Protein backbone atom coordinates (compact mmCIF):
# COMPACT_ATOMS: atom_id res chain seq x y z
CA UNK A 1 0.00 0.00 0.00
CA UNK A 2 0.98 3.62 -0.37
CA UNK A 3 1.71 5.93 2.55
CA UNK A 4 3.05 9.42 3.14
CA UNK A 5 5.46 10.53 5.88
CA UNK A 6 3.15 13.01 7.59
CA UNK A 7 5.47 14.02 10.41
CA UNK A 8 8.18 13.01 12.84
CA UNK A 9 7.20 12.57 16.47
CA UNK A 10 8.92 12.22 19.82
CA UNK A 11 10.89 9.06 20.38
CA UNK A 12 12.44 9.00 16.90
CA UNK A 13 9.28 7.86 15.17
CA UNK A 14 8.13 8.61 11.64
CA UNK A 15 4.35 8.76 11.38
CA UNK A 16 3.35 7.31 8.01
CA UNK A 17 -0.31 7.60 7.08
CA UNK A 18 -1.80 5.23 4.50
CA UNK A 19 -4.85 7.33 3.79
CA UNK A 20 -6.54 5.10 1.27
CA UNK A 21 -6.28 2.11 3.60
CA UNK A 22 -7.23 4.22 6.62
CA UNK A 23 -4.16 3.10 8.52
CA UNK A 24 -1.29 4.73 10.34
CA UNK A 25 2.17 3.29 10.98
CA UNK A 26 4.91 4.33 13.36
CA UNK A 27 8.28 3.49 11.89
CA UNK A 28 11.62 3.96 13.70
CA UNK A 29 13.85 6.32 11.73
CA UNK A 30 16.49 3.70 11.03
CA UNK A 31 14.07 1.73 8.87
CA UNK A 32 13.35 4.65 6.54
CA UNK A 33 15.10 4.80 3.17
CA UNK A 34 18.05 7.18 3.21
CA UNK A 35 17.18 10.83 2.67
CA UNK A 36 13.56 10.37 3.82
CA UNK A 37 11.91 13.57 4.92
CA UNK A 38 8.49 14.94 5.71
CA UNK A 39 6.23 14.69 2.67
CA UNK A 40 7.95 11.59 1.26
CA UNK A 41 5.69 8.92 -0.24
CA UNK A 42 6.41 5.22 0.17
CA UNK A 43 5.28 1.86 -1.04
CA UNK A 44 4.78 -0.21 2.10
CA UNK A 45 4.81 -3.97 2.41
CA UNK A 46 2.75 -5.07 5.41
CA UNK A 47 2.81 -8.42 7.17
CA UNK A 48 0.84 -9.13 10.34
CA UNK A 49 0.00 -5.45 10.63
CA UNK A 50 3.65 -4.37 10.59
CA UNK A 51 5.71 -2.65 7.95
CA UNK A 52 8.26 -5.17 6.72
CA UNK A 53 9.49 -3.30 3.67
CA UNK A 54 9.46 0.33 2.72
CA UNK A 55 10.42 1.87 -0.59
CA UNK A 56 10.51 5.57 -1.49
CA UNK A 57 8.14 6.70 -4.24
CA UNK A 58 9.71 9.94 -5.45
CA UNK A 59 7.34 10.34 -8.35
CA UNK A 60 4.27 10.25 -6.15
CA UNK A 61 5.92 12.58 -3.60
CA UNK A 62 6.74 15.17 -6.29
CA UNK A 63 3.36 14.87 -7.95
CA UNK A 64 1.47 15.37 -4.66
CA UNK A 65 3.70 18.23 -3.49
CA UNK A 66 3.28 20.00 -6.85
CA UNK A 67 -0.47 19.59 -6.51
CA UNK A 68 -0.42 21.08 -2.98
CA UNK A 69 1.75 24.02 -4.09
CA UNK A 70 -0.48 24.66 -7.09
CA UNK A 71 -3.62 24.71 -4.93
CA UNK A 72 -1.97 27.00 -2.38
CA UNK A 73 -0.92 29.39 -5.15
CA UNK A 74 -4.46 29.35 -6.51
CA UNK A 75 -6.01 30.15 -3.11
CA UNK A 76 -3.47 32.92 -2.48
CA UNK A 77 -4.16 34.52 -5.84
CA UNK A 78 -7.88 34.59 -5.07
CA UNK A 79 -7.41 35.89 -1.52
CA UNK A 80 -9.16 39.18 -0.93
CA UNK A 81 -8.23 39.33 2.75
CA UNK A 82 -10.12 38.53 5.92
CA UNK A 83 -13.22 40.60 6.52
CA UNK A 84 -12.30 40.68 10.20
CA UNK A 85 -8.83 42.14 9.75
CA UNK A 86 -8.18 45.35 11.61
CA UNK A 87 -4.43 45.75 11.16
Amino acid at each position, binding site marked *: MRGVLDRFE*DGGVAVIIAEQAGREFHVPLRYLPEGSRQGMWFTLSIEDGRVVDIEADLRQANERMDKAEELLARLRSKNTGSRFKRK
Partner: protein
Amino acid sequence: MKKLMWLAVLLLGLAGCVPLGEPANPKPAEPGQQAAQEQSGGLVVHYIDVGQGSAAYLEWDGYSMLIDAGDWNASDVLMYLDKLEVEKIDIAVGTHPDADHIGQLARVLETYEVGEVWMSGNPSSSNTFIRTLEAVDEAGIPYEEPRRGDEYEIGSLAIEVLHPKELSGDTNGDSLSFRISYGETAFIFTGDADIQAEQEMVAGNLPLGADILLMGHHGSNTSTGLDFLQAVGPDVAIYSAGLDNPYGHPYAEVLASVENEGAEVYGTDVNGTIIVETDGQEYSVETEREGVAKEGSNRCVDINGASSAELTELTGIGQALAEAIIDERPFETLDDLTRVSGIGEGKLAGLKEQGLACVGE
Protein backbone atom coordinates in the same frame (compact mmCIF):
# COMPACT_ATOMS: atom_id res chain seq x y z
CA MET B 1 -9.32 38.09 35.88
CA LYS B 2 -10.47 35.59 38.33
CA LYS B 3 -11.12 31.98 38.11
CA LEU B 4 -14.18 30.74 39.87
CA MET B 5 -15.22 27.36 41.03
CA TRP B 6 -18.58 26.20 39.73
CA LEU B 7 -20.20 26.74 43.11
CA ALA B 8 -19.05 30.34 43.15
CA VAL B 9 -20.35 30.80 39.62
CA LEU B 10 -23.78 29.60 40.59
CA LEU B 11 -23.88 31.82 43.67
CA LEU B 12 -22.93 34.86 41.62
CA GLY B 13 -25.59 33.92 39.11
CA LEU B 14 -28.15 33.94 41.86
CA ALA B 15 -26.89 37.27 43.08
CA GLY B 16 -27.73 38.81 39.73
CA CYS B 17 -24.42 38.64 37.87
CA VAL B 18 -23.97 37.00 34.49
CA PRO B 19 -24.83 33.35 34.93
CA LEU B 20 -21.79 31.66 33.48
CA GLY B 21 -23.39 28.26 33.90
CA GLU B 22 -25.84 29.01 31.12
CA PRO B 23 -24.87 27.84 27.65
CA ALA B 24 -23.60 30.57 25.37
CA ASN B 25 -25.26 31.36 22.08
CA PRO B 26 -24.41 28.51 19.78
CA LYS B 27 -26.46 29.90 16.94
CA PRO B 28 -25.90 33.07 14.96
CA ALA B 29 -27.77 36.04 16.32
CA GLU B 30 -30.48 37.73 14.33
CA PRO B 31 -29.12 41.05 13.03
CA GLY B 32 -31.46 43.08 15.25
CA GLN B 33 -30.37 41.21 18.35
CA GLN B 34 -26.66 41.64 17.77
CA ALA B 35 -26.16 44.57 20.14
CA ALA B 36 -28.05 42.91 22.96
CA GLN B 37 -26.15 39.67 22.45
CA GLU B 38 -22.82 41.44 22.54
CA GLN B 39 -23.73 43.01 25.83
CA SER B 40 -24.93 39.90 27.56
CA GLY B 41 -23.00 37.27 25.65
CA GLY B 42 -20.01 35.30 26.71
CA LEU B 43 -17.22 33.26 25.19
CA VAL B 44 -17.17 29.49 25.43
CA VAL B 45 -14.00 27.65 24.43
CA HIS B 46 -14.30 23.90 23.92
CA TYR B 47 -10.98 22.04 24.04
CA ILE B 48 -12.40 18.98 22.36
CA ASP B 49 -11.19 15.53 23.35
CA VAL B 50 -9.96 14.22 20.00
CA GLY B 51 -7.51 11.62 21.24
CA GLN B 52 -3.98 12.21 19.94
CA GLY B 53 -4.65 15.39 17.98
CA SER B 54 -5.90 18.88 18.58
CA ALA B 55 -9.16 20.79 18.10
CA ALA B 56 -10.73 23.78 19.85
CA TYR B 57 -14.08 25.38 19.12
CA LEU B 58 -14.88 28.92 20.24
CA GLU B 59 -18.34 30.49 20.25
CA TRP B 60 -19.28 34.04 21.28
CA ASP B 61 -21.77 36.74 20.36
CA GLY B 62 -23.23 34.51 17.65
CA TYR B 63 -19.80 33.99 16.05
CA SER B 64 -17.66 30.89 16.04
CA MET B 65 -14.13 29.72 15.28
CA LEU B 66 -12.50 26.31 14.96
CA ILE B 67 -8.78 26.01 15.69
CA ASP B 68 -7.58 22.70 14.24
CA ALA B 69 -9.78 19.74 13.42
CA GLY B 70 -8.46 16.61 15.10
CA ASP B 71 -6.82 13.55 13.61
CA TRP B 72 -7.30 12.40 10.01
CA ASN B 73 -8.68 8.92 10.66
CA ALA B 74 -11.36 9.91 13.17
CA SER B 75 -14.67 11.78 13.11
CA ASP B 76 -14.80 13.07 16.69
CA VAL B 77 -14.65 16.75 15.69
CA LEU B 78 -17.56 16.32 13.29
CA MET B 79 -19.54 14.47 15.94
CA TYR B 80 -18.85 17.15 18.53
CA LEU B 81 -19.88 20.01 16.22
CA ASP B 82 -22.98 18.04 15.32
CA LYS B 83 -23.83 17.63 19.01
CA LEU B 84 -23.46 21.39 19.50
CA GLU B 85 -25.87 21.89 16.59
CA VAL B 86 -23.39 24.18 14.88
CA GLU B 87 -24.79 25.81 11.75
CA LYS B 88 -21.87 27.87 10.51
CA ILE B 89 -18.26 28.55 11.41
CA ASP B 90 -16.92 32.04 10.83
CA ILE B 91 -13.23 31.12 10.87
CA ALA B 92 -11.68 27.66 10.51
CA VAL B 93 -7.96 27.47 11.24
CA GLY B 94 -5.41 24.79 10.43
CA THR B 95 -2.43 25.88 12.57
CA HIS B 96 -0.13 23.71 10.42
CA PRO B 97 -0.63 20.97 7.83
CA ASP B 98 0.09 17.86 9.96
CA ALA B 99 -2.71 15.30 9.78
CA ASP B 100 -3.31 15.28 13.55
CA HIS B 101 -4.31 18.96 13.34
CA ILE B 102 -6.03 19.43 9.98
CA GLY B 103 -7.36 15.87 10.06
CA GLN B 104 -11.11 16.46 9.68
CA LEU B 105 -10.95 19.99 8.29
CA ALA B 106 -11.92 18.99 4.74
CA ARG B 107 -15.05 17.28 6.03
CA VAL B 108 -15.85 20.26 8.28
CA LEU B 109 -15.63 22.54 5.22
CA GLU B 110 -17.89 20.19 3.27
CA THR B 111 -20.43 19.96 6.11
CA TYR B 112 -20.72 23.53 7.41
CA GLU B 113 -20.96 26.99 5.99
CA VAL B 114 -17.47 28.33 6.71
CA GLY B 115 -16.70 32.04 6.41
CA GLU B 116 -12.89 31.95 6.14
CA VAL B 117 -10.04 29.45 6.29
CA TRP B 118 -6.72 30.42 7.84
CA MET B 119 -3.52 28.43 7.35
CA SER B 120 0.19 28.93 7.87
CA GLY B 121 0.94 28.49 4.16
CA ASN B 122 3.32 25.54 4.50
CA PRO B 123 2.29 22.69 2.20
CA SER B 124 2.08 18.98 2.88
CA SER B 125 1.99 16.26 0.25
CA SER B 126 -0.64 14.25 2.13
CA ASN B 127 -4.03 13.73 0.55
CA THR B 128 -5.54 14.95 3.83
CA PHE B 129 -3.96 18.35 3.16
CA ILE B 130 -4.69 18.40 -0.57
CA ARG B 131 -8.33 17.49 0.03
CA THR B 132 -8.60 20.34 2.52
CA LEU B 133 -7.32 22.87 -0.02
CA GLU B 134 -9.64 21.43 -2.67
CA ALA B 135 -12.57 21.84 -0.27
CA VAL B 136 -11.63 25.50 0.30
CA ASP B 137 -11.32 26.04 -3.43
CA GLU B 138 -14.53 24.25 -4.40
CA ALA B 139 -16.63 26.09 -1.82
CA GLY B 140 -15.00 29.41 -2.77
CA ILE B 141 -14.12 30.10 0.87
CA PRO B 142 -11.86 33.14 1.45
CA TYR B 143 -8.34 31.98 2.38
CA GLU B 144 -5.96 33.85 4.66
CA GLU B 145 -2.37 33.39 5.86
CA PRO B 146 -2.07 35.52 9.02
CA ARG B 147 1.32 36.83 10.09
CA ARG B 148 2.81 38.25 13.30
CA GLY B 149 1.35 41.60 14.19
CA ASP B 150 -1.89 41.08 12.26
CA GLU B 151 -4.97 41.89 14.30
CA TYR B 152 -8.53 40.75 13.80
CA GLU B 153 -11.73 41.79 15.51
CA ILE B 154 -14.84 39.64 15.42
CA GLY B 155 -17.62 41.02 17.61
CA SER B 156 -16.14 41.40 21.10
CA LEU B 157 -13.29 39.00 20.37
CA ALA B 158 -9.81 40.21 19.42
CA ILE B 159 -7.12 38.05 17.83
CA GLU B 160 -3.49 39.06 17.80
CA VAL B 161 -1.25 36.93 15.61
CA LEU B 162 1.96 36.00 17.45
CA HIS B 163 3.61 33.72 14.89
CA PRO B 164 4.99 33.15 12.32
CA LYS B 165 6.58 36.35 11.10
CA GLU B 166 7.52 34.54 7.91
CA LEU B 167 7.65 30.90 6.90
CA SER B 168 10.80 28.89 7.59
CA GLY B 169 9.47 25.68 6.01
CA ASP B 170 9.45 23.82 9.34
CA THR B 171 5.78 22.88 9.62
CA ASN B 172 5.67 22.63 13.43
CA GLY B 173 7.89 25.68 13.94
CA ASP B 174 5.69 27.77 11.62
CA SER B 175 2.44 26.89 13.43
CA LEU B 176 -0.05 29.77 13.43
CA SER B 177 -0.10 31.14 16.97
CA PHE B 178 -2.63 33.52 18.49
CA ARG B 179 -3.50 35.50 21.58
CA ILE B 180 -7.27 35.64 21.70
CA SER B 181 -8.91 38.04 24.11
CA TYR B 182 -12.50 38.52 25.15
CA GLY B 183 -12.84 41.41 27.56
CA GLU B 184 -10.10 40.90 30.11
CA THR B 185 -9.77 37.16 29.64
CA ALA B 186 -7.09 35.92 27.25
CA PHE B 187 -6.23 32.58 25.66
CA ILE B 188 -3.10 31.42 23.82
CA PHE B 189 -3.01 28.87 21.01
CA THR B 190 0.31 27.86 19.41
CA GLY B 191 -0.35 24.60 17.52
CA ASP B 192 2.86 22.57 17.57
CA ALA B 193 5.16 25.63 17.68
CA ASP B 194 8.49 24.69 19.24
CA ILE B 195 10.67 26.41 21.79
CA GLN B 196 12.55 28.36 19.10
CA ALA B 197 9.24 29.72 17.82
CA GLU B 198 8.24 30.54 21.40
CA GLN B 199 11.52 32.43 21.87
CA GLU B 200 10.71 34.47 18.76
CA MET B 201 7.28 35.25 20.21
CA VAL B 202 8.86 36.36 23.49
CA ALA B 203 11.33 38.55 21.57
CA GLY B 204 8.55 39.89 19.33
CA ASN B 205 7.32 42.55 21.78
CA LEU B 206 3.73 41.45 21.48
CA PRO B 207 1.59 40.98 24.57
CA LEU B 208 1.75 37.34 25.67
CA GLY B 209 0.04 37.48 29.06
CA ALA B 210 -2.92 35.12 29.15
CA ASP B 211 -5.13 33.29 31.61
CA ILE B 212 -5.42 30.06 29.68
CA LEU B 213 -2.63 28.42 27.68
CA LEU B 214 -3.04 25.49 25.35
CA MET B 215 0.36 23.86 25.81
CA GLY B 216 2.24 23.50 22.53
CA HIS B 217 2.72 20.16 20.77
CA HIS B 218 0.45 18.10 23.06
CA GLY B 219 2.64 18.78 26.12
CA SER B 220 5.86 17.55 24.52
CA ASN B 221 9.17 18.95 25.77
CA THR B 222 9.71 20.49 22.33
CA SER B 223 7.39 23.28 23.55
CA THR B 224 6.22 25.28 26.59
CA GLY B 225 9.74 26.50 27.38
CA LEU B 226 10.24 28.39 30.65
CA ASP B 227 10.73 31.86 29.09
CA PHE B 228 7.52 31.55 27.11
CA LEU B 229 5.66 30.08 30.05
CA GLN B 230 6.72 32.97 32.28
CA ALA B 231 5.79 35.52 29.63
CA VAL B 232 2.31 34.01 29.36
CA GLY B 233 1.89 33.39 33.09
CA PRO B 234 -1.23 31.24 32.72
CA ASP B 235 -3.53 30.29 35.60
CA VAL B 236 -4.78 27.33 33.59
CA ALA B 237 -2.70 25.16 31.24
CA ILE B 238 -4.36 22.61 28.99
CA TYR B 239 -2.81 19.96 26.77
CA SER B 240 -4.53 17.87 24.13
CA ALA B 241 -3.22 14.30 23.98
CA GLY B 242 -4.52 10.79 23.53
CA LEU B 243 -4.68 8.37 26.45
CA ASP B 244 -1.63 6.06 26.32
CA ASN B 245 -0.39 7.74 23.14
CA PRO B 246 2.80 6.23 21.68
CA TYR B 247 4.79 9.47 21.93
CA GLY B 248 4.79 9.86 25.71
CA HIS B 249 2.77 13.13 25.60
CA PRO B 250 2.61 15.03 27.87
CA TYR B 251 6.13 15.05 29.29
CA ALA B 252 6.67 14.92 33.04
CA GLU B 253 9.12 17.83 33.07
CA VAL B 254 6.69 20.04 31.14
CA LEU B 255 3.82 19.29 33.51
CA ALA B 256 6.12 19.98 36.45
CA SER B 257 7.30 23.23 34.93
CA VAL B 258 3.76 24.46 34.32
CA GLU B 259 2.68 23.50 37.84
CA ASN B 260 5.75 25.18 39.31
CA GLU B 261 4.69 28.40 37.61
CA GLY B 262 1.39 28.16 39.44
CA ALA B 263 -0.91 26.90 36.71
CA GLU B 264 -3.64 24.37 37.16
CA VAL B 265 -3.27 21.67 34.50
CA TYR B 266 -5.98 19.88 32.58
CA GLY B 267 -5.49 17.29 29.83
CA THR B 268 -7.97 15.89 27.35
CA ASP B 269 -6.57 12.39 27.97
CA VAL B 270 -7.63 12.40 31.63
CA ASN B 271 -10.31 15.10 31.70
CA GLY B 272 -12.01 14.54 28.34
CA THR B 273 -13.39 17.66 26.70
CA ILE B 274 -12.53 20.79 28.68
CA ILE B 275 -14.81 23.82 28.47
CA VAL B 276 -13.77 27.30 29.56
CA GLU B 277 -16.48 29.94 29.78
CA THR B 278 -15.97 33.62 30.36
CA ASP B 279 -18.04 36.78 30.47
CA GLY B 280 -14.88 38.76 29.77
CA GLN B 281 -14.23 39.34 33.46
CA GLU B 282 -14.35 36.01 35.19
CA TYR B 283 -14.01 32.54 33.84
CA SER B 284 -14.76 28.99 34.85
CA VAL B 285 -13.42 25.60 33.79
CA GLU B 286 -15.63 22.58 33.36
CA THR B 287 -14.32 19.13 32.52
CA GLU B 288 -16.05 16.05 31.21
CA ARG B 289 -14.22 13.84 33.71
CA GLU B 290 -12.37 14.46 36.94
CA GLY B 291 -8.75 13.44 37.09
CA VAL B 292 -5.24 14.70 37.61
CA ALA B 293 -3.02 15.36 34.58
CA LYS B 294 -0.27 12.77 34.45
CA GLU B 295 2.79 12.38 32.26
CA GLY B 296 2.68 10.03 29.28
CA SER B 297 4.62 6.78 29.33
CA ASN B 298 7.85 8.28 28.12
CA ARG B 299 9.88 7.19 31.09
CA CYS B 300 11.03 3.79 30.03
CA VAL B 301 14.09 1.62 29.70
CA ASP B 302 14.92 1.68 26.01
CA ILE B 303 16.04 -1.83 25.09
CA ASN B 304 18.00 -0.38 22.16
CA GLY B 305 19.78 2.33 24.15
CA ALA B 306 19.89 1.49 27.86
CA SER B 307 23.07 0.61 29.72
CA SER B 308 23.48 -2.91 31.11
CA ALA B 309 22.74 -1.52 34.60
CA GLU B 310 19.48 0.07 33.40
CA LEU B 311 18.48 -3.14 31.66
CA THR B 312 18.77 -5.02 34.94
CA GLU B 313 15.93 -2.84 36.27
CA LEU B 314 13.69 -4.90 34.02
CA THR B 315 11.88 -7.88 35.53
CA GLY B 316 13.81 -11.10 35.01
CA ILE B 317 16.87 -9.46 33.42
CA GLY B 318 20.16 -10.09 35.20
CA GLN B 319 23.64 -9.00 34.21
CA ALA B 320 24.23 -11.87 31.76
CA LEU B 321 20.93 -11.32 29.94
CA ALA B 322 21.53 -7.56 29.85
CA GLU B 323 24.79 -8.17 28.03
CA ALA B 324 23.12 -10.64 25.66
CA ILE B 325 20.46 -7.98 24.87
CA ILE B 326 23.18 -5.45 24.06
CA ASP B 327 24.85 -7.95 21.70
CA GLU B 328 21.57 -8.59 19.85
CA ARG B 329 20.60 -4.93 19.27
CA PRO B 330 18.69 -3.41 17.60
CA PHE B 331 15.18 -4.72 18.28
CA GLU B 332 12.18 -3.50 16.34
CA THR B 333 9.64 -4.52 18.97
CA LEU B 334 9.66 -5.90 22.50
CA ASP B 335 8.54 -9.25 21.07
CA ASP B 336 11.84 -9.50 19.23
CA LEU B 337 13.58 -9.88 22.60
CA THR B 338 12.78 -13.59 22.33
CA ARG B 339 15.69 -13.63 19.85
CA VAL B 340 17.95 -13.45 22.88
CA SER B 341 18.82 -16.85 24.19
CA GLY B 342 17.38 -17.03 27.71
CA ILE B 343 14.36 -14.82 27.04
CA GLY B 344 11.28 -16.93 26.40
CA GLU B 345 7.61 -16.12 26.24
CA GLY B 346 7.29 -16.23 30.05
CA LYS B 347 10.06 -13.71 30.64
CA LEU B 348 8.68 -11.53 27.86
CA ALA B 349 5.23 -11.58 29.45
CA GLY B 350 6.78 -10.51 32.78
CA LEU B 351 8.59 -7.66 31.07
CA LYS B 352 5.43 -6.46 29.41
CA GLU B 353 3.51 -6.67 32.66
CA GLN B 354 6.12 -4.47 34.33
CA GLY B 355 5.54 -1.90 31.58
CA LEU B 356 8.97 -0.29 31.91
CA ALA B 357 10.67 -1.57 28.75
CA CYS B 358 10.26 0.27 25.47
CA VAL B 359 11.80 0.31 22.00
CA GLY B 360 13.58 3.55 21.18
CA GLU B 361 15.68 4.65 18.27
